[in-house]
Each structure stands twice: as structure tokens, then as C-alpha cells.
């Protein structure tokens, strides 16, 4: 096995991992603020992927442009989901929240199955077959663009939380629920806003991912688990941790696929998850509570 191959595989895994990271960032932001684990996260990701394929088939809209309207719709959807369904559940026990989001996930994945059927769908652009050659290293154009979009979206979200007043208010709600209420913040509104932002992240990640893989309904539960693994490894609630976890999982999956067997790649991720939970339960970049 040549070194070139390994390097190529690592780069591909790293780029894919950045998209995973953006997907997980959505989950992490939602958990970090609302303290609810979104068990329908991967299902939302596949809905965004299907939306991109539909827009591509109907309007020949490139997924990189489609991500703007898809993210906008997802923001509104996420806001409504939190405001209508999840806000009444924030004081309920964890298993009750879990059941609610599992019900949402079941509805989503099967609605996709009803509408699109079990066959795989994708988009086909000309640049998907092209790649940049740097010496003997090949980088797929689509993968690189998708990863750049993911990094860009993550940077926008970082800036939003750090620089805007709304972002600051959301962080206040996350830090101290009661304190945020005392100073007069409408906590539930900010929760809805956060869920909307997390959903928009997933929408962008889905539109980027559809350039790299074909989408089928069962991909939803798979992505949900993947997002859990990533945020736990990186640190649930930590934004930088989600990206780092995404890259780690992306690279380790790619290497496991190369050296062991493609079917064993998620065993590797789950093994990593168990190790992190035992050695550093707050995650690599998480803060101890």
C-alpha cells in the first residue's frame, strides 16, 4: 500500500470530516443551549439532502446555491419545532424528551420513504468528477468546495455567538437558565432561535454532503448516531469540539475503511466514543460541569 494512497485517503477523510463537523455543530449548539438531545438530527440532515436533490432535478440549482433557501426553510422549521413541540418538554425527564424526538424521527424517516421510495438519489454536476492535482496528491473538487462551505458556515456561527448581542443572549441562556430569566431574557424565544440555527447548520451540511454521497432514508438514523459520536468525542456543547470531533471521526473512518474493512469503519468510531467517555467524559474540548 503506497504512502500516496494513505495521504489521499486521509485528506478525503479530513474534508468529509469537516462536513460531519458542521452537522454535529448543529447538534452540539442545540444541546449546549436547550439541553435537549436532538434524536432526529440525522433525519433532518437527510431531509436537507433530499431537498437539494429535488431543487437540482427541478431547477438545475447547484447544491451550493440551493443551500441558501434550504437553510432558510430549515431555520423556520427548527424554530417552529422548538417553539411548538420541544419547549413544553424542557422541564420533563430525559426519557420523555427522548421519546418525543424519536417520534419526530420516525415520522421524518418514513415520510421520506413514502415520498421518495427506498432508491438512492444524488445530484450530478460536472465538477464532481474533477480533482485538483498537487504533485501526486489528488483532491476531489466537490469534496474541497463542500468542506470549505462547511468551514465557512461554522465560522459564521462562531462569529454570531461571539459578536452579536443575540448571540450573547443565547450564551447567557445556556450558562444560567434562571439568571437569564431574572435579567429579563425571553429564554424560550432564544431556545427556539437556537434550534433554528442548529437546523440551519444541518441544512448546509446536508446540501454539502449530497455532493459526496447518495441519499437514502436509512441514512438518517446512521447520521444521528454519527453526530452523537462526534459531539461526545469533541465535547457535548463545545463548538470547536464538534469540528475537531468531525475531523477525527472522518479521518478514522477513512483509515479504518482502507486498512480493515469498509463495514468496520463505524466500529472504530464507536470504540473511540467509548474510550473518550471513559477517559474524558466531558469530551476532548468540553468543560467539566
Amino acid at each position, binding site marked *: 500500500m503506497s504512502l500516496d494512497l494513505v495521504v489521499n485517503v486521509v485528506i478525503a477523510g479530513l474534508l468529509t470530516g469537516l462536513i460531519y463537523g458542521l452537522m454535529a455543530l448543529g447538534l452540539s449548539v442545540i444541546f449546549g443551549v436547550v439541553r435537549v438531545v436532538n434524536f432526529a438530527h440525522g433525519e433532518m440532515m437527510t431531509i436537507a439532502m433530499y431537498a437539494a436533490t429535488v431543487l437540482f432535478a427541478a431547477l438545475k440549482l447547484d447544491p451550493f446555491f440551493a443551500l441558501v433557501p434550504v437553510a432558510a426553510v430549515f431555520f423556520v422549521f427548527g424554530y417552529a419545532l422548538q417553539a411548538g413541540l420541544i419547549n413544553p418538554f424542557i422541564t420533563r425527564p430525559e426519557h420523555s424528551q427522548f421519546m418525543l424526538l424519536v417520534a419526530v424521527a420516525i415520522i421524518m424517516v418514513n*415520510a421520506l420513504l413514502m415520498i421518495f421510495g427506498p432508491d438512492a438519489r444524488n445530484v450530478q454536476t460536472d465538477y464532481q468528477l474533477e480533482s485538483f492535482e498537487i504533485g501526486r496528491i489528488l483532491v476531489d473538487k466537490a469534496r474541497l468546495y463542500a468542506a470549505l462551505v462547511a468551514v465557512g458556515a461554522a465560522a459564521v456561527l462562531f462569529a454570531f455567538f461571539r459578536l452579536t448581542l443575540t448571540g450573547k443572549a443565547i450564551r447567557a441562556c445556556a450558562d444560567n437558565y434562571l439568571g437569564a430569566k431574572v435579567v429579563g431574557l425571553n429564554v424560550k424565544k432564544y431556545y427556539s432561535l437556537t434550534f433554528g440555527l442548529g437546523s440551519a447548520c444541518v441544512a448546509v451540511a446536508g446540501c454539502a454532503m449530497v455532493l459526496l454521497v447518495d441519499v437514502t432514508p436509512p441514512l438518517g438514523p446512521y447520521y444521528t448516531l454519527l453526530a452523537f459520536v462526534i459531539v461526545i468525542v469533541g465535547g457535548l456543547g463545545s463548538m470547536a469540539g464538534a469540528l475537531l470531533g468531525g475531523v477525527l471521526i472522518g479521518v478514522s473512518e477513512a483509515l479504518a475503511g482502507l486498512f480493515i474493512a469498509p463495514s468496520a469503519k463505524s466500529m472504530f468510531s464507536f470504540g473511540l466514543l467509548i474510550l473518550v467517555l471513559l477517559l474524558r467524559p466531558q469530551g476532548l474540548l468540553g468543560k467539566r460541569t
Partner: protein
Amino acid sequence: MKKELLCLVILAGLLVAFPAFAGPYALSVATLILYFAYTGQAWNVMMGFAGQLSLGHSLYVGVGAYAAGALFFHYGIGPWAGLWLAMALCAGFGLVIGFLAFRFGISGVYFALLTIAFAEFTRIGFDHLDWLGGPGGMFLRVAQRDVWDLANFRGPPLMYYYAMLFLTAGAFLLCFFLLRSKAGYYWQAIRENEEAAQALGINTFRWKMVAVALSAAMTSVSGVFFAFYYNNLFPEQIFHISRSIEIILGPVIGGVGTLFGPILGAAVLTLLSDGITDLLAALGWEIPGIKQVFYGIVLLVVVMFLPHGIWPALYRRLGFHK
């Protein structure tokens, strides 16, 4: 209390007499209900009594099924020996997971995700274990279906129905006495407030471990049943997270922490799923996925409007409370 006991005796009598009136289809549905009732009861020991949320109970069903199945498949050893192996293995697995989690102070959502991780890890591991059939599955020999071969747990559907009824009744009684035992009170104290329980001198680590081991061992028995009832085992099916969710749905819908909740929840969900299938077939709406969408919607409505499950609400309605 007298009224409750009377209702319970009538229900038990009806269940024992049920096969005399029921056709083969109704019997298979009833067996499935009892299967979920029993497994839900086992899960409830850990979550409902001791407050430890496991989302990976398919691990114990799968390991139990494969342990007993492999003994039978490779060595022809019947399930009565396999049962002990399955229970020991699963209690061991549960203790390892519990030890790792509780020693390092992992609880709540993190514990739940850890249980998922272990189940998924095992699922992919079994996919690569050729000795147990790998992803192609393991198939147990199907013996004559009309003879009651109790030694090898082979026989007509009626035998499986009574086996499951016996297990469900046994688990119900066990949980009834557990809840009124010292362990039961310790668990409930831990569930309600772990720090306060510890301050009162309860060894919370030890009692959480007991709950996990007991729940895992009980769940492994449904795995053994599964292996000999369905005769085929695929890692992709038996360990999948959707199996874990299926186990949890009954007790959550019926009422977490209640004795009758898992049984009621299993009956409601199984009949609901069956009813939706019949209704959609009658309407001619047979699109793949539509059944699960309806199922999801009903689930959503129940979770939203009955936060404590159906049984506590029904319990008051029936006038059982003193």
C-alpha cells in the same frame, strides 16, 4: 387493593384461557405482546426503578439470543443450559458497562449514549464474527412444529405463548416484590435524588450495579426466547438501535416505573401497529413507510398529552387509588 387483585386474577385467567378462543394469528400477536411486555418490564427495572436510562437494551437481547443460539447451533445444547449462559454473559456485560459508567460518574444523557455506543459496537462486532454467521445470519434447525419438545424448547406456537405468559407473570411478580423490598426502596431513592440517597448512607454505586445486572439478565431471557421462536438471528436486526427503541416504547407509553405500565404499553402499541396495518390495507393505502408515519404521530400525541404514560391516568380513572 382487593379490587386490584381481583382484576389481576381475572386478567390472568383470561390470558391462560385465551388460546382456546384465539386463532393462530391472534395467538402470534398475543405472544408478541407478551414478549414486549416482558422485555419492557426488564428494562423498567433499570430505568423505572433505579432511574438509569438505557437506550441500548438490544445488546442484552442480542447477546442472550446468540449465546443460547450458538450453543444449540454448534453443540446441540438446548436452551435450558443456554439460558444460564445467556443470563451470566448479559449480567457480566451489564456489570462492565455499569462499572465503567458509574465509576467515572457518567449519568443521564451521557450514560444513555454510552449504552447506545456499546450496543452499536457489539452489532458491528457480530457482523464480523464468522463463527456466529456474521452478517449472513445464524439459522437454528426448525424441528417438528406439532410436538411439545420442552427439552429443546421446540414446539407449536401454543408452547411459546405459554412460555412467554409464564415469563411475563414471573417478571411482574418479581417486580412487585422487588418494589416492596429493601432494594426497591433504595432504587427509588436513587431515582428521585441520588445525592440525597447517598447522604442517607445508601451505597448508590452498588445498587445501581445490581439494577443493571438484574435488568440485563432478565432481558437476556427474551433474547433466548427470540432465538428459539424466530430461529434466525441477524446482527443487523437484533442489535439495531430501533430494537432498543421498540423495547422502551412499551414502558414509556404505558408508564415508566409502574408495574402494569410495560404490559399495558406493549398491548396498546402492538395492537395499534396491527390496527394501522389493517386499516391501511382496508383503505388500499399501502405505500411503504405510511404505517410508521401514523405510528409516529400516535406516539407523539401520547407522549405530549400523557407525560406519565397511559397506566397512571387509567389507574385513577378506574378508581383504583385509595
